[in-house]
């Protein structure tokens, strides 16, 4: 190879490397742009709309049905993704005696708050629970080792532990969604599997009173954004700085 050929070859090589690098850079920046357009899922629950149907369990039943959450006779074994509790225990910190008197018989719907700053995620030693870009606090049941740190960390009691093999206690198995097994913790996933198909969470979908409002806080025109801008709302124990994404309106 003479000097001329060598220089030509080196030039082509340098150009090739530069082109490769710039293509890489462009494709990376595009991937990053796509990630930015994320959602911020949140829910608003209306006390008054929910209270209109006393004893209604539609949302609880549908959630536990599609996610194969078992039902045990002994409440100590119990598992729950969404549940109802009396106002004075859910909002034990709301000490205003007049409100307490007025709402004495109110039963409040509770679920995972999908916190902005989730304490369960901080304590998980295997990263089996983590916060997604869109705000959903996810569980990877494959990684859960059942240490239950997350249950101790969660101030809302949103997580439950499988003390027993759940499968025999699931009345109607939904084969489209796996159940869990003895030794893992489970909780609400904001119907992540439905959101990815463009559906809203099952509890929101089924509520006959439209007491549950779900949507994207990053979108100012979403129903939940509008409701939360317009109406007075409270969160469960906001002073813990967990930033709950489930809001309660009257």
């Amino acid at each position, binding site marked *: 190879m003479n000097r001329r050929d060598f220089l030509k070859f080196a030039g082509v090589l340098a150009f090739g490397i530069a082109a490769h690098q710039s293509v890489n850079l462009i494709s990376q920046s595009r991937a990053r742009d796509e990630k930015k357009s994320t959602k911020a899922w949140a829910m608003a629950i209306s006390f008054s709309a929910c209270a209109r149907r006393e004893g209604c369990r539609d949302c609880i039943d549908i959630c536990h049905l599609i996610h194969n959450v078992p039902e045990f006779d002994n409440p100590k074994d119990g598992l729950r993704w969404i549940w109802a509790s009396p106002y004075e225990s859910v909002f034990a910190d709301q000490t205003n005696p007049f409100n307490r008197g007025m709402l004495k018989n109110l039963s409040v719907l509770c679920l995972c708050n999908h916190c902005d700053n989730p304490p369960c995620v901080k304590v998980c030693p295997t990263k089996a629970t983590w916060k997604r870009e869109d705000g959903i606090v*996810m569980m990877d*049941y494959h990684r859960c080792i059942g240490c239950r740190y997350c249950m101790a960390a969660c101030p809302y009691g949103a997580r439950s532990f499988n003390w027993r093999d759940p499968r025999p206690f699931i009345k109607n198995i939904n*084969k*489209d969604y*796996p159940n869990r097994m003895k030794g893992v913790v489970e909780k609400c996933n904001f119907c*992540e599997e439905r959101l990815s*198909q463009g559906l809203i969470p099952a509890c929101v979908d089924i509520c006959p009173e439209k007491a549950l409002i779900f949507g994207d806080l990053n979108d100012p025109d979403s129903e939940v954004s509008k409701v939360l801008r317009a109406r007075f709302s409270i969160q469960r124990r906001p002073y813990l700085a967990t930033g709950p994404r489930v809001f309660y309106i009257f």
Partner: protein
Amino acid sequence: MVKIIIGLICLLIILFSPVGYNVITGRTGYIPLLKTPQYQGDCVEGTIYMRKRHMEVLERWRNAYVRDGIKRYVSINGIYNISLTGTCLKCHSNKAEFCDRCHDYGGIKPGCWDCHHIPEIKAEK
């Protein structure tokens, strides 16, 4: 001396009895017979690749689905919904005669079925 030799022979017989058992029952060259699907389509990757690497495919599927929120898998054979029960076992519906038969042969017990469901097999004639 004789005692030692008898002892050694007994030891050898015990050691090789499994091989002898297979020779007698004619199973030395035994390969599990797999019931592959009636060609509803191609597997997610090539057969040879799947034979060697299906556990890696499943691990990738699992991580993509659960951790990265990717619900579809694209390969040269097509686009597949990521689901163990809904995709793999839709084609390989006879798990007992496919997955299990091969895993029993290899002495492997994947612990997926405590949580993941096995579809009922449609009655075949």
